[in-house]
């Protein structure tokens, strides 16, 4: 008979389902989302590009690195290896887009120096 009372209670409760596109989903701690590159911290050691298993990172010069998020599989090696923590994971996970250039790197803390 417990199920009857449970169903009756559920009828007046809010549904468990989250309305995702309208209500943004919460990410957990240490979530592996889109990679953020802080160009002003970078010392140009190239460790990230060397260690990347899927070669999603193209190193041009200090402060100018291409992250192709279409090839990245979020192993976190570049984040771990970076000696100055210039590369970080963010909470952003919804970057489906019609333009493939949107999948390229996202630079914070100033523009890359030429």
């Amino acid at each position, binding site marked *: 008979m417990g*199920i*009857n009372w449970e*169903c*009756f209670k*559920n*009828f007046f*409760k809010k*549904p*468990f*389902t989250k*309305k995702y596109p309208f209500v943004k989903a919460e990410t957990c701690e240490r979530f592996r989302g889109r990679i953020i590159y802080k160009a002003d911290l970078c010392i140009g050691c190239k460790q990230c590009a060397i260690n990347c298993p899927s070669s999603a990172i193209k190193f041009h010069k200090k402060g100018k690195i291409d992250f192709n998020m279409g090839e990245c599989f979020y192993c976190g090696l570049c984040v771990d290896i970076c000696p100055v923590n210039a590369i970080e994971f963010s909470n952003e996970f919804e970057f489906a887009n019609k333009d493939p250039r949107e999948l390229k790197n996202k630079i914070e803390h100033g523009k890359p120096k030429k």
Partner: protein
Amino acid sequence: MGLELSIASIVFLLLLVPFALVMEGIRRKTVARMQNRIGPPVWQPIYDVLKLFQKGKTDTLAKENPFFWIVPILTFLSGLAFFLFIPFNIISFQHDFIFLIYLLVLESALFVLAGFASNNPYSTIASMRELILMVCYEMIFAIVILTVFIFEGVLSVAQFDSLFLFWKLPVAFICFMVLVAVEIRITPYDTVDAPTEVLESIRNEYSGKGLAFLKMADALKMTFFAAMLLYFFIGNFNMVAFFVLIPVAVMVFSFIQATTCRYRVDQTFKRLAFYLILALVEIVRIKFIVW
């Protein structure tokens, strides 16, 4: 014999199909809410039927059988014909409750025929199950209806006028609630519509207009049983109260559906045999013991 086809009754019959589909939507929504889901919108069955009417026929071997496309239409029409009696009494004549019982048998028989005509193994199994079940439940249904009419001492549905009959005929009321579950095929007795056993039961091969007609017939049947429950056992109120109380009755059915699980086929038959005995006890009881 009286046939009262006024404008009001024609409008009522026309508005009945969307009303029944909304009732189906309310059923689905209520079950979903009781299972802590959001569920489809209440208008979803109307969208489904409108979409299905725009679709073409699928290319199955069964379409060569004329019964395959004519039976869904007949099922739908027999579903509409229920509402000639309740709640408006558009047709009324002496002993018309026997005709009502025949109509309900006809609807189930057409359902069975639709399954056999679609020439699908799963549909055939579903049709066979319905055919065997019909032998059990239509008999109980006829006995319950006879009990109600003998107790009231009337000969026509239109003359029927009593309040809270479920208090005076409790066993018949329990039998009727079980019959509702069997007839509209909700969980404790959905041996025919069991999706894990016979997939979509008789609707496996149907698509487009045929499926739309079958869906509408099912919704009409469910609404009719809610209406009949109110008319016979709760009371013959005015129309406004009737259309407010039908969704409540549908919610009661949804509650039964949400809280129970399916009986096996043999368990269903054993229980139906038990309820047949109960119904017989009730029809004998009202002759001798009345409270």
